[in-house]
């Protein structure tokens, strides 16, 4: 007969107000297998835990049920206490009678009855609980950082400075990310590049950082402590080791009218290019669709005719290059790296108001002309127009005719808080960057007028509110509360129809330039990466943290951490803080030689396994392995399934899929669950 102890917690008044805790304890006292049953004011307090330990000894308990709050709150607490008293921690279970009962019901009798039912079901379950011991796995003491924006740079430097090796993967030709495109940063107005570029150089020169630029993560295998990463190094067609960054190739390149990604389409570049002068690595890349030579090769391949003339098309860069670093034969290359932990820092992209959207459920702004109205730009374009390194050398000139705009209208919340467009969340940073834009504009165009349409000003960071106040109180600046209904081109101005909802005054503005504070979205193709990493995303595509409050940089996949805007819209200070937090989590993990894990994993009864491998198809983690059973002479008898406990996450899909009923999920066995159902 089992000897189970039941401990019913009052949680002060929280439970006791609606649940008669003494009656619950009483009802359970006579239940078969219950040796001891009591109630107490605060079970999680020191005296409460002592009560449990004491009773365990006194009554020689072999199972413990604590009826109190959610196990998400205190399961660890009570299992630790039970363990301290000498019992396997997995012999302790909780019943949630607070969140799932006392807080959601008013009828005392019904709540008491429900609590009793729930505790009884747990008691029945605990009878079948087995002693489990944690699993240990070895650790590779290196980290992978995906994304070389400010988040990835910070994380890589923190980890490498602490003495661990880092592999940094960046998909663009240079690290730096969006921060390198900004002119100034709020609320201190320091120059973005001035504070960022030294860090980029640190990354390039760090002995413990391996940088794979113009590369993407192709495949992720393995599990926490032991990931195998396949990285695709895209064909740069310039040898990184030979190139001396002289720039002669770019001087020689005849295609000069290609819209520059770095200048958000407002400036131009050549087809062999470095995105910006301070790029790291400062090695050019050849843009295949635009390079005359590569285009001619593609044409020839298409027409399948033998080359009429042997004369090479263009190839002026090859002639110009002293160290002979240009290699048109170069192709994508796969390299593999072993790491123990992964930091995802893939950042964001801006929402586009265009008619065509890359995701179902999201639509553009037809009322704002779907982005086809000239002189309507987004915030990143405005940054480039303001930046000393930008296409206008830091002079504000509007795209259509190069005139200096006198009246600029800023529209906030474009694609933010707009469920009708499929974009319901607040992008968090736009109030601040719009205030920054206003101040920058007033700084450059002294007699200019700025009108800002805002919905609410969200400026809760340190020094943020005074910053937005400064913008609002600036002469020539008018903040209007409301969304503009419509904008359209009228001659050489853009008409903006809106209303100030505080005064109910309608406004019809003739603007010279309109700047849209467009929303932040996860990077394109993020679903592809999250699938490889087994990380889940929310319905907007932002990656899910393990717990919104208590585990903000961890993911549900052990060993994978998050930094920056891949998790939610973030500004620079938050991003950097998050990157350092993720690094400290990585370092905590990599500071050990091996790793303990919760033992709630699946286990195959190999004697009964028929080898159908339905479980393998059900397992998303690839935790099912093939095990060969051999006889005494080493001859193969049959192949059965085996669960790799390091990879198994304990979802139980394999258990439900097993045709011969021979997989059990430890901690959630059929016996345990049926016992609960019986009792409920």
């Amino acid at each position, binding site marked *: 007969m089992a000897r189970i102890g039941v401990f019913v917690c009052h949680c002060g008044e929280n439970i006791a107000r609606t649940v008669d805790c003494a009656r619950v304890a009483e009802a359970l006292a006579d239940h078969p297998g219950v040796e001891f049953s009591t109630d107490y004011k605060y079970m999680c307090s020191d005296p409460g835990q002592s009560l449990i330990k004491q009773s365990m000894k006194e009554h020689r308990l072999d199972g413990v049920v604590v009826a109190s709050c959610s196990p998400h709150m205190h399961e660890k607490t009570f299992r630790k206490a039970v363990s301290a008293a000498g019992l396997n921690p997995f012999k302790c279970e909780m019943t949630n009678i607070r969140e799932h009962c006392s807080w959601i019901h008013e009828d005392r009798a019904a709540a008491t009855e429900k609590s009793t039912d729930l505790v009884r079901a747990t008691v029945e379950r605990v009878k079948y609980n087995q002693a489990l011991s944690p699993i240990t796995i070895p650790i590779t003491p290196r980290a992978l950082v995906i994304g070389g924006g400010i988040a990835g740079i910070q994380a890589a430097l923190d980890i490498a400075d602490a003495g661990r090796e880092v592999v940094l993967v960046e998909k663009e030709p240079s690290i730096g990310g969006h921060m390198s495109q900004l002119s100034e940063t709020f609320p201190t107005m320091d120059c973005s590049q001035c504070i960022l570029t030294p860090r980029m150089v640190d990354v390039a020169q760090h002995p413990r950082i391996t940088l794979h630029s113009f590369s993407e993560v192709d495949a992720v295998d393995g599990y926490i402590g032991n990931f195998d990463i396949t990285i695709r190094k895209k064909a740069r067609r310039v040898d990184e080791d030979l190139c001396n960054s002289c720039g002669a190739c770019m001087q020689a390149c005849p295609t000069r009218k290609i819209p520059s990604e770095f200048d958000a389409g407002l400036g131009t570049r050549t087809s062999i290019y470095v995105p910006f002068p301070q790029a790291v690595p400062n090695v050019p890349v050849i843009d295949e669709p635009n390079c005359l030579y590569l285009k001619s090769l593609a044409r020839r391949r298409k027409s399948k005719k033998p080359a009429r003339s042997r004369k090479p098309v263009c190839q002026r860069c090859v002639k110009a290059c002293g160290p002979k670093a240009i290699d048109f034969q170069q192709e994508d290359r796969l390299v593999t790296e072993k790491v123990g932990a992964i930091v995802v820092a893939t950042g964001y992209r801006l929402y586009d108001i265009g*008619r065509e959207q890359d995701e179902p459920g999201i639509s553009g702004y*037809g009322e704002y*002309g*779907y982005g086809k109205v000239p002189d309507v730009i987004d915030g990143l374009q405005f940054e480039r127009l303001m930046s000393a390194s930008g296409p206008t050398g830091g002079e504000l000139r509007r795209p259509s005719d190069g005139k200096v705009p006198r009246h600029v209208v800023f529209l906030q919340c474009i694609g933010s808080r707009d469920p009708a467009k499929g974009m319901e969340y607040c992008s968090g940073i736009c109030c601040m960057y719009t205030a920054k834009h206003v101040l920058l504009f007033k700084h450059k165009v002294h007699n200019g007028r700025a009108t800002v349409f805002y919905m609410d000003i969200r400026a809760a960071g340190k020094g943020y509110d005074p910053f937005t106040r400064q913008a609002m109180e600036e002469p020539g600046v008018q903040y209007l509360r409301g969304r503009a209904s419509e904008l359209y081109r009228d001659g050489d101005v853009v*008409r903006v129809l809106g209303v100030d909802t505080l005064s109910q005054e309608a406004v019809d503005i003739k603007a010279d330039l309109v700047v849209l504070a467009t929303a932040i979205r996860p990077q394109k193709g993020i679903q592809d990466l999250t699938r490889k990493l087994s990380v889940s995303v929310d319905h907007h595509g932002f990656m899910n943290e393990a717990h919104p409050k208590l585990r903000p940089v961890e993911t549900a996949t052990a060993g994978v951490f998050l930094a920056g805007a891949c998790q939610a819209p973030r500004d620079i200070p938050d991003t950097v803080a998050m990157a350092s937090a993720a690094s400290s989590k990585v370092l905590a993990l990599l500071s050990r030689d091996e790793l303990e894990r919760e033992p709630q994993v699946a286990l195959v009864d190999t004697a009964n396994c028929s080898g159908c491998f339905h479980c393998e198809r059900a397992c998303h983690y690839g935790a099912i392995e093939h095990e060969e059973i051999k006889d005494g002479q080493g001859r193969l008898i049959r192949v059965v399934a085996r669960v790799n406990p390091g990879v198994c996450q304990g979802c139980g899909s394999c258990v439900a899929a097993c045709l011969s009923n021979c997989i059990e999920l430890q901690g959630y066995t059929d016996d345990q669950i049926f016992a609960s159902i019986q009792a409920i």
Partner: protein
Amino acid sequence: MNIGYYPGCSVHATAREYEESLKAVASVLDLGLDEIPDWSCCGASSAHATNHLLGVALPARNLALAEAEEMTRVLAPCAACYGRLSNARFELGRDQALAREVGVVLRRPFRNSVQVVNVVEILQELLPRISQRTVRPLAGLKVASYYGCLLVRPSKVTGFDDPEAPTSMEQVVDATGAVSLQWNKRTTCCGAGLSLSRLGSVVRLGHAILNDARASGARAVVVACPMCHSNLDFRQAAINRSRQHGAPGRAGELPILYITQLVGLALGIAPSKLGLQRHFVSTRPLLERLLEQQGMEVA
């Protein structure tokens, strides 16, 4: 191809030329129009604004009659009728309780199986045929396509084109050889709902629309709705007289054509068969210029 046809009250009176031109064009394009027998008024905004059930039941009666004739699609040339019929279909599709209630009121079997289409939609389907059978391309005629409200809004009810940046009318206009202009007031309301009771508003709204069309260089405005037509044609004299809303009409009168009239002209149908003589704003100068141009082209 044959299609069910719901004329609506206005095409038998103020919008007579709309039906005349529609029928003429349909015949050239081999589109058969099967009129719903004994159709009744859709209730327009009066039923809709005052009694929700009536606002659904009146259009539903007509859809039920069409269904009884085994029509799968019904063409409603009037944008207001199109809006009411589409709305009834939409609401009955999503609201089971309402569908039961309307069933009781109608006292006739109704499965809500009839689709409702507007004139632009059907012309869009027939684009290749229009291009093929165009004998008098309206080359050089600058046209502002005016959608108004009811063709494109509410978009979840009509499901037709983009409510903010539609393109269907321009596609039809382009098929006639005329030139579609970019302008800003294409989907701005003309105020038809208050046409009888509040002339001042109608004048103000019409003024803004006509001025924007003129500013874009339009020689004619094309519409697909009797309300829009009456507000911009019948009321144009009042609009042009008014000076309280900024500059008066910049270049005098601007003819308002039904899209079927425009297509009819391109198909070579005689202007009188298209009812072009029935307009308040004379279409004669426009027609003369067109003929002259074509004459010159021939020569």
